[in-house]
């Protein structure tokens, strides 16, 4: 990332942070359809690549969308994941998990044409059943565009910090 990028300015920065708070509220409330419809654009690439632990001298390039990934979804695929949660037959979400998102270090930059590059950190806590509690920390690289008086995400790259996921799955949106 270049240090020369143009900051989006306080008004936009603040609007994007408000947008992220609203996004968290929808996800925490289980309003996945509303989240998808209102906050995700139809050209989305929703991507969580797999990063190996490699020696610093290893010159192999970083993963691309043609490599193995945990998420590598377009809009239709994301929608299928959302709809599964409304099927009434996802037993592991009944009773439902509790999930809390903490979004921090939001930095928004102008990317031209009403688009913004936004970097943020995520801490996600998931509580399930009686005693299960898992924590995931991620870096998030978004491309947002202004749509009406709000924003929609059309590129989302999720960078997991843990090489080995300490949870039974990563089936949640973030």
């Amino acid at each position, binding site marked *: 990332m270049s240090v020369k990028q143009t900051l989006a300015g306080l008004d936009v920065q603040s609007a994007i942070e408000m947008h992220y708070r609203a996004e968290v509220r929808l996800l925490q409330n289980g309003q996945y359809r509303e989240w998808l419809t209102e906050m995700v654009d139809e050209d989305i690439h929703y991507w969580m690549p797999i990063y190996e632990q490699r020696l610093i001298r290893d010159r192999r390039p970083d993963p691309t969308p*043609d490599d193995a990934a945990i998420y590598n979804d377009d809009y239709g695929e994301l929608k299928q994941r959302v709809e*599964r949660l409304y099927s009434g037959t996802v037993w592991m979400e009944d009773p439902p998990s509790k999930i809390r998102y903490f979004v921090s270090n939001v930095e928004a930059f102008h990317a031209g044409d009403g688009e913004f590059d936004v970097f943020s950190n995520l801490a996600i806590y998931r509580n399930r059943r009686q005693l299960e509690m898992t924590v995931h920390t991620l870096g998030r690289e978004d491309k947002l565009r202004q749509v009406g008086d709000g924003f929609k995400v059309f590129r989302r790259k999720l960078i997991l910090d843990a090489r080995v996921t300490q949870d039974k799955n990563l089936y949640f949106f973030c």
Partner: protein
Amino acid sequence: MPRIPTLVDNVEANQSREIFWDKDVYDLELERIFARSWLFLGHESLLPKPGDFITTYMAEDKVILSHQQDGSFRAFINSCTHRGNQICHADSGNAKAFVCNYHGWVFGQDGSLVDVPLETRCYHGQLDKEQLGAKHVRVETYKGFIFGCGDADAPGLEEYLGEFRWYLDTIWEGAGGGLELLGPPMKSILACNWKVPTENFVGDGYHVGWTHAGALLGIGGELAGLAGNRADIPFEDLGYQFTTRHGHGFGVINNAAAAIHVKRDGWAKYLADTRAEVGRKFGPEREELYVGHWNCSIFPSCSFLYGTNTFKVWHPRGPHEIEVWTYTMVPRDADAETKNSIQREASRSFGTAGTLESDDGENMSSATHVNRGTITRDGRIDSSMGVGFEGPHPIFPGIVGSSFIGETSHRGFYRFWKEMLDAPDWKTVKANDDTWDSIFTNRDYWSDKIDAAE
């Protein structure tokens, strides 16, 4: 420690709940199963060049699998022979040598000790480097799949796979190109005993319609009819289950190879283009298997779904936890776009965030941890489905069950699991080679059924 004979009852087709919980059983598994069996290490495609390496596990042992200059593969314990420090901490890479972080001992690509810092001044010429190479394990390859074994007395890999190769050849060789694995693997921790997912993959067609009801409805297509077990499907016409000498087994749903894949044009075309050649090489029965969907485990802890093409290793981490590694299987000679599409669909369904995988983990963990209770644990779990509806078959090797929904291959898996725990050595195991399948008592099941059909 519970008495071993009660852990598995081959006649009543049930097991003690201790097999998912007891620490002494687990310790015996490490010794008598994992240290004596051939364990999956990797595939040639994951380390294609000399000097390439990957680090992995053989049960709880850390190993380095290394591609040699002569094209062969060697594997050695990832621990320095000086004071035991782990030698290599990278997932994979290419290395001329491996240097231990602790004192800088240098091990070659073949695991031999090649350099020791300050050797002359500190060891006074008394260090026998030849005796201090990293500890080797046996390595053998079958159709590109690389396995390791810690027991010098174990049979070779081909004998270990045994008659199961008759089935594996159908897909691991296929029309000619065979399969390769795409990595890097997804890795996750699952709080379950290692046998719960292994038995699920070896033969649990029963859970598909219920556990995965939501996902199947979303995917639609052929398998949507299974969702919620609502459809009246003639299961005996839809597929089979198989178990073989060393516990390897699978279930197959006919004509359903690509059924879990939503975007499947390339993969479906590949199968359509190559099935006739598979039929020519292997005969009509295996051509039918080639276009079916397999849920399969290779004893003890390696599983795959052919068709969906997810490939799993369940590395045990104590009796109540595993580390799940997930690769994708693709035809070696498919075009790049088809390989990419198969990888995406396999990850979408059975990766760490998979639409079906996410249904399974919860069951596997609760089927393990509920046995924490003393009263609970003093009981049995049942795998009697389809007893008697199975037997030797005129064409298919091993024992064949009548439907893909049955527990024939569970029974075969636990039969061999018990045999390995009971046996002091491989010689004792080999003595059972001619009688192993006697627990499947309906010897005429298939001949009667075939006669009746004619």
